[in-house]
């Protein structure tokens, strides 16, 4: 399309730098607005996983006597809330910025990306708290921690692919926002977060295998708690993540030109 905004057509590095400046500005605004005027600000992002982790460790560990510990739950819940809040928040990014999409020509991918980045930064800020909790319970860093960037990157790409898909499709099918909410609740239980992956009975293993998040959740725990490398099923999850990323990106590409007509 010739009539594209010429500023962003600037080839290569210059155009990329401008887009990344825009992305950085949007992300930082998003993070600041989220806790603006609240007394504890960023600390609230810790409350959700901590509160759920502690109450579940009481309910599952002490009441039901499963032996599940708080550190076991927290090592699963922190990455889970990163995934859940990113995907949920991404669904509304195009619909919620309709006014902007109708009036200004800019690289539209920055909208879901800024939401994902905001949530990712929040997760990264929360990691030291998780790390401190684990140290306090005697889990020293091991060489396996070197694998953390790998599963971090994989989960980031999985989230990004899903974010593009749900944000784009929601423009045309508003019910998706609610469907995503329900699905995320189901995925929570289909992912080894409140149970260990190896406790899943053999005839239900396929659920875990088809869920690209499952090996990641299992991986976080193996690395942080057991000092082991992630399992070999991580590669299958990596392949699924690549598919999700491609489908998400091309869905966005295919639909983005009609956003301004539909919103």
């Amino acid at each position, binding site marked *: *399309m010739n009539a594209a905004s010429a500023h962003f057509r600037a080839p290569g590095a210059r155009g990329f730098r401008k887009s990344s400046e825009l992305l950085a500005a949007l992300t930082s605004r998003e993070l*600041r607005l989220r806790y603006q005027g609240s007394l504890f600000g960023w600390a609230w992002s810790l409350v959700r996983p901590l509160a759920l982790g502690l109450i579940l460790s009481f309910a599952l560990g002490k009441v039901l006597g499963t032996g599940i510990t708080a550190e076991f739950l927290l090592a699963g819940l922190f990455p889970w809330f990163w995934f859940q809040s990113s995907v949920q928040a991404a669904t509304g990014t195009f619909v919620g910025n309709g006014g902007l999409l109708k009036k200004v020509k800019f690289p539209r991918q920055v909208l879901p990306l800024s939401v994902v980045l905001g949530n990712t930064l929040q997760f990264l800020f929360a990691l030291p708290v998780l790390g401190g909790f684990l140290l306090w319970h005697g889990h020293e860093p091991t060489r396996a921690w070197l694998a953390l960037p790998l599963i971090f990157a994989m989960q980031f790409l999985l989230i990004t692919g899903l974010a593009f898909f749900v944000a784009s499709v929601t423009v045309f099918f508003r019910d998706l926002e609610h469907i995503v909410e329900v699905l995320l609740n189901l995925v929570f239980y289909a992912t080894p977060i409140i149970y260990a992956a190896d406790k899943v009975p053999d005839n239900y293993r396929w659920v875990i295998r088809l869920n690209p998040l499952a090996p990641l959740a299992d991986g976080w725990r193996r690395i942080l708690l057991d000092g082991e490398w992630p399992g070999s099923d991580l590669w299958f999850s990596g392949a699924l993540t690549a598919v999700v990323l491609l489908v998400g990106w091309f869905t966005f590409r295919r639909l983005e*030109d*009609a956003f301004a007509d539909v919103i």
Partner: protein
Amino acid sequence: MSSDSPVLAVRAVSKKYRMVAPGSELKTLLLHPGAALHARRQRSNLWAVGDVSFEVGRGEFFSIIGANGSGKSTLLRLLAGLSRPTSGRIETNARMSTLLELGSGFHPQVSGRENAIMNGLLVGMSRAEIEGLLPRIVEFAGLQEFIDQPMRTYSSGMYVRLGFAIAAFMEPELLLVDEVLAVGDLRFQEKCYDHIAGLQKQGVTIVMVSHDLGAVERFSDRAALMERGRMIAIGDPKKVVGLHVERLASSSPEIRAALEEHIAGDQEGMDRLLAEDPEARAAFEAALELNPDFHRKLQEEAARGSERLG
């Protein structure tokens, strides 16, 4: 690019919208598939823009006028690349800046300064560029003491001023302007038109969609009239505005009646007729001020009418 090749060329551009037929929603499709499919077949197409072609040369001030719903804003959206034509081509290589509803990207919770920077980034400037321009933008908008206040404290006039100042200082080659100047106060409007005229002198090409027929006549080099998605006239602004007013008056009984009241000297009756529709009022006023011929014609008609009655 040679100086005589057009900055913007629109070739046979059309834009089709599908009208939503009642009963074709997904919910009905699930519950009563037969009825929904039938409704889907019945739904009609709306050609918001149909087979429009024109060229705009470098440094030209080109205005597009037309009644509400004539497709002029859709056309501007297509020019801005915000929406894709169903068929036809839009050719331009110019660095474009759009003044489409100023301040649509502003966030009320953050300061004017941050919004200005965000707005500049959105339209494709780099942070360094916009920070360099910021003092001039703030001065032009007259917001020196407010720029670090959150924008929720701004008046709507301040919104518009900041929005215009940002777009106007972007140093575009092609500036698209939509209806925006109607919002600010008169003095600021004048300042904006002056600034646009100054840009034009520097060789900036301007395409404007407006209801302000006076401004269209004063500033445009050429004007075009849209009616039901088609461009029915293009050329000298005076003639095009005159045609628009004439066609509006002949199609709208309110305007015609208001003109007759005006001629009869009944100010109150005229105001009452025009109170609901600012567009009709603008057309009416333009009819009076800018087109004495038309005025005379109506007077003659009125005279003839009263003769018949008498």
